């Protein structure tokens, strides 16, 4: 791709894809922006028109908003913490030559194949239910009062459920990174007098840094949009204890039928996602440089 002709040919060839992607992205964004400045409630279709920043001010000023932002950040941070640390530990474990390695790997990956609403319902009804759940049974067997996970610690419970779903992804990415570490490097460190924990800290962890960055970035994108798990377990409650920004947008559009306000919420969510992205790229983006 070095001659003038081949470069312009390349541009022509690429343009249909680029243009359709652009339209694909721009149209919904512009529509969302448009709606966010309109009074547009499905329950009152006659009361329409331009309202300026009204949708934004009411969305941001609502008492649920700050709580939702905090919950969103807690959810993302909590799941990232569990999946990254858990993923490293699991990857280290299944990288060992253990009996039945192949089966163990398949089992570890299994949660990834379960649809989010199914996974969340299984957790809700079979594990965390305070009367019938397995955890309740375990508590009773130990002579303790069963704990109402989704009632008393809704956000933490949702974090656990979502982390369970994402752990396989993190483990898989980190495992492949781990397997690309040359054994001679580890042996060199061993001969240089580094005990196991220092080999982990000085050799293995730096080697994994790029994979960890990829895991964090990809998961953050998806975690900011977590909705189904909340919907089928706590419905954002009790009160607003497990309401995230995404859930708030959902509530505005579907439950309150307020498309205008939901669009404003969506734009706020996009802005938040971008702030998080900039922050992440500043913090760990340099790990991606070769």
């Amino acid at each position, binding site marked *: 791709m070095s001659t003038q002709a081949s470069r312009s040919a390349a541009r022509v060839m690429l343009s249909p894809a680029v243009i359709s992607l652009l339209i694909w992205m721009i149209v919904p964004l512009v529509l969302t922006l448009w709606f966010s400045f309109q009074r547009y409630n499905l329950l009152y279709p006659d009361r329409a028109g331009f309202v300026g920043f009204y949708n934004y001010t009411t969305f941001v000023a609502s008492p649920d908003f700050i709580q939702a932002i905090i919950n969103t950040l807690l959810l993302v941070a909590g799941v990232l913490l569990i999946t990254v640390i858990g993923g490293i530990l699991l990857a280290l474990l299944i990288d060992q030559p253990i009996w039945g390695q192949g089966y163990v790997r398949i089992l570890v990956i299994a949660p990834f194949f379960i649809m989010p609403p199914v996974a969340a319902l299984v957790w809700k009804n079979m594990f965390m239910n305070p009367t019938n759940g397995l955890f309740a049974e375990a508590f009773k067997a130990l002579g303790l009062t069963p704990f109402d996970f989704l009632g008393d610690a809704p956000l933490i419970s949702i974090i656990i459920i979502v982390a369970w779903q994402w752990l396989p992804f993190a483990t898989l990415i980190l495992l492949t990174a781990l397997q690309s570490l*040359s054994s*001679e*490097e580890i*042996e*060199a*460190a*061993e*001969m*240089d*007098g*580094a*005990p196991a924990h*220092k080999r982990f800290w*000085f*050799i293995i962890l*730096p*080697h994994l*840094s790029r994979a960890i960055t990829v895991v964090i970035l990809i998961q953050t994108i998806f975690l900011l949009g977590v909705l189904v798990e909340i919907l089928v377990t706590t419905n954002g409650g009790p009160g607003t204890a497990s309401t995230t920004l995404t859930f708030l947008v959902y509530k505005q559009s579907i439950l309150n039928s307020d498309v205008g306000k939901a669009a404003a919420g969506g734009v706020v969510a996009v802005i938040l996602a971008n702030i998080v992205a900039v922050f992440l790229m500043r913090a760990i983006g340099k790990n991606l440089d070769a």
Partner: protein
Amino acid sequence: MGQITLSKVTKRFGDVEVIPPLDLRIEDGEFVVFVGPSGCGKSTLLRLIAGLEDVSDGQISIDGKDATSVPPAKRGLAMVFQSYALYPHMTVRKNIAFPLRMAGLSAAEQEKKVMAAAEVLNLTSFLDRRPGQLSGGQRQRVAIGRAIVREPEAFLFDEPLSNLDAALRVNMRLEISELHASLKTTMIYVTHDQVEAMTMADKIVVLNAGRVEQVGSPLHLYQNPQNTFVAGFIGSPKMNLLTGPEATKHSATTIGVRPEHIATSTTEGLWKGTVGVSEHLGSDTFFRVNNTGLGETIMVRAGGEVAIRHGETIYLTPDPTKIHRFDDKGQRL
């Protein structure tokens, strides 16, 4: 001190015995080269000495003390790997300082030793680069630097030059020999290249399928190969090994004559043949002689200025005092 003794050391991977019971003694300050064809167990033997593999049987002692179950870090040995095994995320300075840091030396002491090693290895201007920004030869030097700063009892090298180009290889060979001359530390060096073995070693250990075929100085091995394997392996080009009636004449199963111990003539000689492919190196000429009726192509070395052409008839006469004789088991007679 760096005296290493292996007694009855055996290594099995599952059912496969890679190293049958092996005895070897390496003296303090010696430059020992393990040489043998690929897959003969050289690396495995080195890794057993380093402690990176557990012995299946037998004993390894370092400086008279049993080290068979001592972990690698505590054996006082430093290893230079074939792939260099540098830490890619650390600068050259940090790479070299790593063993010192692990040993808990102060930052000032680390810096002093790193600078001293960098001085010896001509690395001072690269200290702040990462391994990825260095050439193969420089990486090799960093790996050696990381070994030197530990001031080990012995250095272990596993084919350290095999990833370098020919010119650099000759250079590094000299540098490592010089390093040995100045440090006077025991060095164990593994290679499949008999030229490296011949040029660097005080003592060569020829390995074949995990067995020690012969141990001795380069010249001793060259002049008195103990068996046909060593005879064929040491020396370049290879010794001519002949079987059949010619060998029976010397009451042996196999006889060996080195290419340089064969006189050539265009008029008379013991063997007659036609000249095949020849290699003119300037100082020497190596040529193959076919159709000698000996069952083998004979390799001959002559001076640089000989005018021998492909297809010509030539007469060869081996020096009778330089003929090696081997019995039916391949052992020297």
